[in-house]
């Protein structure tokens, strides 16, 4: 059976096509203001890779905060449930999932079947972790890849008070103007974000193993900061962490 999952996030649309539980196609496109147009793009890409047409797909499940803006799906699941199911498929050892997107952050506690036991979503003044790192990379005039690499170079700890990320920027700006080493600033930012994510994660009483998914998951600096912040031996990051939601939706579609 062929199913698909579509994750319409704040910034991008991601699509995963499954045949008999195996991923045969992926597609992604920036949503901008018109999520539906982005969805079409993502579909094209995914279908092309899978070498099939939409008609071949028996069921499409959608997830993501902006799923309401696009049509063309049979049923919907929340990001939290999709994440839990997906990560359990990839790595059944996982009990805690951290999902860090551009705007939203989530901590999810799951059992050995991937069922959600408890979840926390970032509250006011703690939003935009991903977007923040992006904006800061921009302020530092480095790409987000370079940002992570720089962060890894530093071993220094500079406290940034990041309760409000936008206001935190002015702290970063003053660090910049004090000619603080660029690598140290990058780490300081990753640490600050990590602290907030860790705080949120502790609400669901973090248990190992812990997985980091979502767009920001590729940030190697953030990975390190979180591993230290949560006192973990290891932090599991799946391949294509930004597709986890879509994958979960596709899996659930296949199972129901």
């Amino acid at each position: 059976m062929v199913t698909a999952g579509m994750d319409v996030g704040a910034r991008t649309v991601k699509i995963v096509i499954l045949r008999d539980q195996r991923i045969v196609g992926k597609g992604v496109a920036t949503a901008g203001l018109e999520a539906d147009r982005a969805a079409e793009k993502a579909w094209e890409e995914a279908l092309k890779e899978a070498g099939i047409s939409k008609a071949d797909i028996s069921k499409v499940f959608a997830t993501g905060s902006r799923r309401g803006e696009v049509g063309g799906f049979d049923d919907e699941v929340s990001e939290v449930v999709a994440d839990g199911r997906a990560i359990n498929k990839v790595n059944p050892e996982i009990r805690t999932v951290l999902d860090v997107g551009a705007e939203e952050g989530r901590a999810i506690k799951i059992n050995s079947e991937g069922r959600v036991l408890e979840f926390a979503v970032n509250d006011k003044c703690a939003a935009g972790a991903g977007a923040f790192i992006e904006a800061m990379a921009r302020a530092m005039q480095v790409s987000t890849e370079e940002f992570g690499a720089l962060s890894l170079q530093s071993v220094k700890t500079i406290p940034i008070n990041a309760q409000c990320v936008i206001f935190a920027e002015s702290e970063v700006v003053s660090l910049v103007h004090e000619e603080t080493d660029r690598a140290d600033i990058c780490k300081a930012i990753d640490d600050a974000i990590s602290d907030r994510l860790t705080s949120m994660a502790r609400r669901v009483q973090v248990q190992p193993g812990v997985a980091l998914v979502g767009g920001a998951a590729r940030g190697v600096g953030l990975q390190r900061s979180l591993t230290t912040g949560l006192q973990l031996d290891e932090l599991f990051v799946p391949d294509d962490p930004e597709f986890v939601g879509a994958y979960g939706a596709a899996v659930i579609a296949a199972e129901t």
Partner: protein
Amino acid sequence: MFEAIKTEREYWRWDEANWANPDMNWKSGEVISAGVDVGSVSSQAVIMVDGELYGYANTRTGYNSPESARTAMNWALEASDGMKLENIHFKVGTGYGRVKVPFADKSITEIACHARGANYMYGPTVRTVMDMGGQDLKAIRCDDRGKVLNFLMNEKCAAGTGRGIEVIADLLEVPIQEVGRRSLEVDEDPQPVSSTCVLFAKSEMMSLLKKGYSVNQALAAYCAAMAYRVYTQINEVGVVEDFVITGGIAKNTGIVRRLEKLLGIESLKTGVDCQLAGAIGAALFGKVLYEKSHKK
């Protein structure tokens, strides 16, 4: 590394510019002073000859602030008719990076500088200056010489600052110079966005668009909220006329007009680029400091 694929256009970018007065001959000037305002978002350098505006440059602040200061200064000099840095008698740094202006003889806060600069740009009747910069909102009360009597800066959150508007411009894919104008192209103002938290304003704007708001209406809702935020802050120091707005956001007519409506006061306008106020004030202080140091 992000889901984000680079947006083709950087909607948040301000224009950069430099200029020098062709009708002035700086060589015949007695005191040449310069002010460099290294802000969080943009940097300005101003050259004054005997306390008159001769030339300036307005650039985006880069990662390295000494570098940004040099770029701005050099750019201003380029526009001049052969002026060199060493021709300038006294240089004052201001703004976030004020202490890092490598060639500065002194650093003074942008609060003092904006008050002094506004006094020059708009005349001695100015009593209240609202500086709306990249990271901060500054409400300043001053006397007829542009001396600060009282001031207040925003705490807690950065809504209403240039940075906040950049975020929204990016979100709605509207060039930042057009945000103000387009926000005024609505029949009537919608309910202002309720959240003054920029990040929450973002999610609120998205839902407004979902509700069928046009981009212009969404901009109107945002500008109205920001105007109100500025309004409450300026009320804390108390508005005394004449009233002026300086800093990057003074270019956002959408916020300025709404702010004036809330206050029931027109702000004075000027031909000079209002982002220069800080650098101009700095240069004017430079002149005084130079003269004082050369009095016997």
